[in-house]
């Protein structure tokens, strides 16, 4: 069953034509990696799916329903979660408040918090601290936890390992793998070994369109097929 279907979308920033006909799919339970050099349109693809920057042409279907031009909060409520680049946790709010905001139903806040603290005990330790006091890795976990408690079927994860020390990346990778057992995921990641490890399938983006796709089992981080489009 297809969770997400992006069909031939074209997205512009002002006059710039960023996405020139991007198509991809994510099936139930899959982790799909979206890879490419800086600036090819990976984040724009995520933003397009969320309708933060709606496409001018093309379709975006979530479980069969076209969601183009819906309000972002409506898209989110359908069960699509966003773990953005730079995490974007609410710095002035406490860890617990950050989580509360993400739980869709007021009655389920207690359950949601329990879920988050189980998965990330470090967050429970710091529950009353302002999010800005957390380290990069901890903020990433908070962002991920937000995605989990939001009752999402699909998580759009953008560069989770960016700016993190290697040991932290390993922890984050573990958390992502755990999350992947509960939801489907579209993962934008420049860290090739991490991406290929987590994902079942991949797409490669170049100059605003998909130029290659396949099973991650068929490639490795140093294969030429990938090196063509990505800086090693």
């Amino acid at each position: 069953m297809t969770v997400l279907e992006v069909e031939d979308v074209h997205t512009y920033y002002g006059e710039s034509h960023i996405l020139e006909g991007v198509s991809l799919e994510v099936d139930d339970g899959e982790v799909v990696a979206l890879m490419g050099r800086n600036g090819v349109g990976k984040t724009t693809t995520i933003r397009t799916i969320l309708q933060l920057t709606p496409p001018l042409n093309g379709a975006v279907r979530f479980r069969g329903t076209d969601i183009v031009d819906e309000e972002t909060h409506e898209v989110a409520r359908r069960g699509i979660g966003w773990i953005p680049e730079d995490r974007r946790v609410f710095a002035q709010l406490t860890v617990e408040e950050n989580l509360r905001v993400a739980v869709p139903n007021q009655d389920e806040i207690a359950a949601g918090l329990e879920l988050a603290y189980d998965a990330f005990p470090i967050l429970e330790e710091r529950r009353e601290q302002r999010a800005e006091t957390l380290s990069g890795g901890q903020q990433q976990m908070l962002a991920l936890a937000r995605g989990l408690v939001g009752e999402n079927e699909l998580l759009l994860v953008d560069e989770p390992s960016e700016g993190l020390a290697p040991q932290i990346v390993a922890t984050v990778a573990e958390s992502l793998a755990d999350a992947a057992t509960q939801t489907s995921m579209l993962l934008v990641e420049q860290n090739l070994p991490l991406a290929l490890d987590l994902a079942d399938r991949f797409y490669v983006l170049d100059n605003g369109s998909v130029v290659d796709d396949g099973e991650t089992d068929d490639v490795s981080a140093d294969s030429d097929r990938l090196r063509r489009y990505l800086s090693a």
Partner: protein
Amino acid sequence: MINTLLAVAPELVPLALVDSFIEFLHPSELSRVLIDGLSKAAIYAMIAGGLTLIFGLMGVLNFAHGSLTMVGAYLGGAVMVLMVSSTTGPLARVAFFFVAVAVVFGALSAVGGALEVTLIRRLYDRPPIAQILLTFGLTLIIDELMRIILEFYDIQPRADWIAAWGTKPWFLSQRLSVGPISVRGIALFEIVMGVLTVAGIWAFLTRTRYGLFIRAGSEDSEMASALGIDVRRVFTVVFALGTGVAGIAGALLMWDTHWGASVPLGAETLLPAFVVVIIGGLGTFRGTVAAALLVGLVDAIMSWWFVNEIKFSGLPQLTIFLILVFVLIVRPQGLFGVEEVGGH
């Protein structure tokens, strides 16, 4: 005293200054200045509070805020004038006042919400100056409509509405004394109202779910909407709330003889409100409260000095702008501001 000395014997001025300083430190004077300052701070906090909520979340600098405060003053006055007769006892009057506050809050919130939905909303994609201009135009319209209504009922728009003063309970018109300390009753009342309002807003922001949405949206409205929050509707609620609070401030001012309900009240409250918001740091409620305290107290101190000692009556009004200029030079983002300068 210092003026005459300056003219006659300049060498004696330092002595006179010391003299004045000693007088200043006397408990009766100090307490008067303190209460005066706190009451001013309370007023500024209430007026600026609404403004900062709106700006923090939406980036809208609401020029119509002063006019809406003025409408609140008249509406509150109207409710009081209708309900209070000469035989009404003082406690009953206070009770009626809270009824008036409720009416004003409800009415002004509704007006604010309506304005947001019909007009302000259309300008979110435009540069911020468009909202300033629109709300400036609204001020003109609101002021003129009020004048039409007032003149129709034979009420002088430019003068303070005396009938509204008449609805005050006696103990607020007088000074209350304990020992050497004597303070204006209305000043204490304003402090109480100010504290209640600020506490109310604070509780709303920190203890309620909606308050959480507002704080999250103020920080990062994109991320908030990606978490399922209908940021547009939150905007409307905040604008309505901010306007409602402005109305309450107005209702309070109708009783204060230093302000009074008159059409110029709009302009008189708008500029200090802006200044307080900017000094505190655009968009932080905490900053606004801190700035209100700073400005209120400095204003009261300056008033005492320059009215009693140096006869330049305009200087207290200058104070607020001098503080603004000083703060913007020294710390452009305001006391608690986190925005990059010029971010809005």
